[in-house]
């Protein structure tokens, strides 16, 4: 029975389920039903991805295919799972408000697009999916009646550069790959092309902004489109820019007065660290980046979930004053603390080992670059505790709404704790699998540079 079950086309089912879900949810009239169905489809998608993961053999690294276009390899297997979990967390944290109706459909659409992006093997389809994912929030901003032009301009530039560069790939010349890299740096929110990220979090609902920020489309695109073809000098320059971004994002996160903007800069800094590891294109750096990708996505999704739940109960909070929410929701405070510390790779959490590896790999190139990473990590860490103190300490407020965490939220918090600390205490399986994926990617790069 087990063999028969594993032989079912789980990958195809996992790819189709969110699309089907989006269609059904968009036609559902009741808001409560939309939310329930969205979560149901995301949970089913998670189950399918778990089966795909169980069926993948890391030893032989034999790919699981769905047609000729979609394929799961050592890189993409855990990413499917991670993305489903991040979408599920966003779904659980999304409140049932009238303006959020579109969020449930968009969430399932985003899940479908990201899964297709991760598994897609066709260059043009990947470019199309990256573009589609980037444009999805524009519709949401329009529906909310918010300003969307600046965001649209940035994304138009992203798509333009990507299409222009992609049209000439693969190429012995440097400029097509440089164009693609510029586009993907923009998509990753690299300084000075990052302002769209804060705008996105301000103008779209977190239910729309979070999946886009946490899908790490820029990192994925860099691995698929740039890493195999880019020369050393291009990668070196880009790595310097990502380091600057990591520090800049950390410093900005430290001074923000709104939780959404704080979160956007934290995302910017952390994703720049991931990209920095990819651009290092060494075995240790790439292994670290692939591990960090997973840990950062999960931790930031958890942190975003807490901020979302807090916002749902108390509205937009200013980080200029203390709100004293610990007494009302200690579980949320605890969750904020461990997901926040995990997102900045605190010891004992899932991100600690990857950061050590990343700094080690970077320091092999230059001590100063390693120090810049440590500085960025330090700034992010200070920023996290600052926000914790602002939100959860201070004079207790008189509640107007039900404050304790719901049953679903409690389950999400416990699962997050298990992932964050489980991955921190037993990092070896994860690091080993990412090491294999990194070696495979580096072999591809070496092969593409052969005469």
């Amino acid at each position: 029975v087990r063999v028969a079950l594993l032989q079912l086309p789980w990958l195809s089912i996992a790819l189709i389920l969110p699309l089907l879900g989006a269609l059904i949810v968009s036609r559902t009239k009741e808001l409560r039903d939309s939310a329930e169905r969205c979560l149901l489809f995301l949970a089913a998608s998670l189950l399918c991805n778990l089966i795909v993961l169980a069926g993948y053999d890391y030893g032989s690294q034999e790919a699981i295919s769905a047609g000729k276009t979609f394929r799961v390899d050592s890189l993409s297997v855990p990413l499917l799972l991670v993305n489903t979990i991040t979408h599920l967390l966003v779904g659980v944290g999304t409140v049932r408000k009238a303006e959020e109706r579109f969020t449930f459909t968009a969430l399932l659409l985003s899940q479908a697009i990201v899964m297709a992006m991760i598994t897609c093997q066709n260059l043009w389809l990947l470019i199309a999916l990256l573009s589609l994912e980037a444009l999805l929030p524009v519709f949401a901003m329009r529906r909310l009646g918010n300003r969307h032009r600046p965001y649209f301009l940035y994304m138009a530039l992203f798509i333009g550069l990507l299409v222009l560069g992609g049209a000439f790939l693969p190429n012995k010349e440097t400029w097509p790959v440089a164009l693609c890299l510029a586009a993907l740096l923009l998509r990753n929110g690299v300084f000075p092309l990052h302002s769209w990220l804060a705008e996105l979090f301000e103008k779209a609902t977190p239910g729309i902004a979070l999946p886009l920020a946490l899908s790490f489309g820029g990192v994925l695109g860099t691995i698929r489109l740039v890493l195999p073809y880019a020369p050393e000098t291009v990668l070196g320059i880009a790595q310097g820019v990502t380091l600057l971004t990591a520090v800049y994002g950390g410093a900005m996160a430290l001074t923000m007065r709104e939780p959404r903007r704080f979160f956007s800069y934290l995302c910017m800094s952390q994703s720049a660290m991931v990209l920095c590891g990819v651009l290092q294109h060494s075995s240790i750096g790439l292994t670290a980046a692939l591990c960090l990708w997973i840990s950062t996505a999960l931790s930031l999704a958890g942190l975003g979930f807490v901020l979302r739940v807090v916002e749902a109960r108390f509205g937009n909070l200013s980080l200029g004053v203390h709100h004293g929410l610990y007494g009302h929701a200690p579980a949320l405070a605890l969750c904020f603390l461990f997901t926040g510390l995990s997102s900045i790779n605190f010891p004992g959490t899932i991100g600690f080992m990857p950061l050590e590896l990343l700094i080690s790999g970077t320091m092999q190139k230059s001590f100063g670059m390693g120090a810049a990473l440590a500085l960025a990590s330090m700034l992010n860490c200070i920023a996290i505790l600052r926000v914790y103190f602002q939100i959860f300490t201070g004079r207790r407020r008189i509640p107007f709404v039900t404050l304790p965490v719901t049953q679903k939220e409690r389950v999400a918090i416990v699962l997050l704790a298990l992932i964050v600390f489980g991955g921190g205490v037993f990092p070896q399986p994860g690091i080993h699998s990412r090491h294999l994926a990194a070696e495979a990617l580096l072999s591809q790069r070496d092969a593409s540079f052969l005469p």
Partner: protein
Amino acid sequence: MPDYSQIQEMLGLLTLGAPIGLLLFFGFAALFGKTLSEAAISKALRVTLVTGLLASIGVGVMILAARELQLVLEVGDWVITSHYHFKIEFVFDVLSLSYVLLTYILCGTIGAFSTRYLHREPGYNRFFVLFALFLTGMVVTALADTVETLFVGWELVGLASVLLIAFFQERTSPAQNGYRVWIVYRICDAALMLAAVYMHELSGGGDFDKLLGDVPWPWHAPLVAGEHTLLLGFLFIIAAAGKSALVPFSGWLPRAMEGPTPSSAIFYGALSVHLGAFLLLRISPVIESSALLPTVVVVLGALTALYAYIAGSAQTDIKSSLSFAALLQVGIIIVEIGLGFRYLALLHLLGHACLRTLQFVRAPTLLHDYHTLENAIGMHLPQHPGRLQRRLSPPVFAVLYRFGLERGNLDTFLSDTIVLPWKRLFQRLELVERRWMDFLGGGRPS
């Protein structure tokens, strides 16, 4: 029947595992929203501390009986790839056993004190979760035989300390002070992290014996020397300076007194404040590998002692006075380390930690006794001018008094010269970003 070395290892694991078990017990209860009763917390604490203390005494006795000088406990590999090897390894030697015994004895004393002192206090459970976190961090740091393991424990101690400073969280000032301390801790932790990675690169692993040789403490001598150890030494000194509140990071120590008295006693009077000295003792051969590093250590220690003496003489509350008195002794211990007196520094550290803990715990009742005495005699207790006041001319004394009262304006100096300019710069940059987006939005403000 387990043999001698297996019993030794089991006791070693018990020393290490006891606080981890306590942390898991308290942590899971907090995660599932279960409030443990005061009796259950007290019992769990007692069992853990007695187990850990007896196990560590057992390890010490067995090491001495076997005429060995250290026991290395290899727990396993945390991460192993073709480029990176991260071992979980602990060492029981004179230094680590002394510190771990001190930890268990003082945590036992303060644990017993706290269960009564914090009776019916809101946040009783939270205090003991953080207490367990601190205990775990201290034991891991003390026993660590790899720099990465030490870093893990070091960070846990820092986090627990900061959250305990902000324990009375319905007031904003404990949170603000906790945040200030966190900033200093993060600076020194970043230096320690860099030191850990750099040491890994330098000696091919994070094990102390790869850097210091496979000889028990205190007879280590560095295997790697030259300009590399100079940089490594400086990074370790920055880390130690932050944790032990040496100049110019001394401003955080009186701020840390916002926490409950038991945590002030154990963290800032006894264990946490000495961690910097402990780190310098652990890597003392690296410090002594060049002429410059010991000089820096001695100067830092002496400056700290001088600063603490002047500032401590002008304080008007008992906890601040005690914190500066502790800092004065820490400064002297650091000088001793810089001069190469490793055993003397260790003995000084152990004695001072015990004395200061008892002083901190006695402080609230001492004030009560003073009040009783003053009520009985119907006037304030007579105050005599101190030695400093008698020997210095009034203008010089006034300058020093102002310096001491303002704690040397160290915090203000760091804040005005480093923090505020950067904060203003990034706030302006945010404004520029907002204007740029408004411009792209066709002048429609956000």
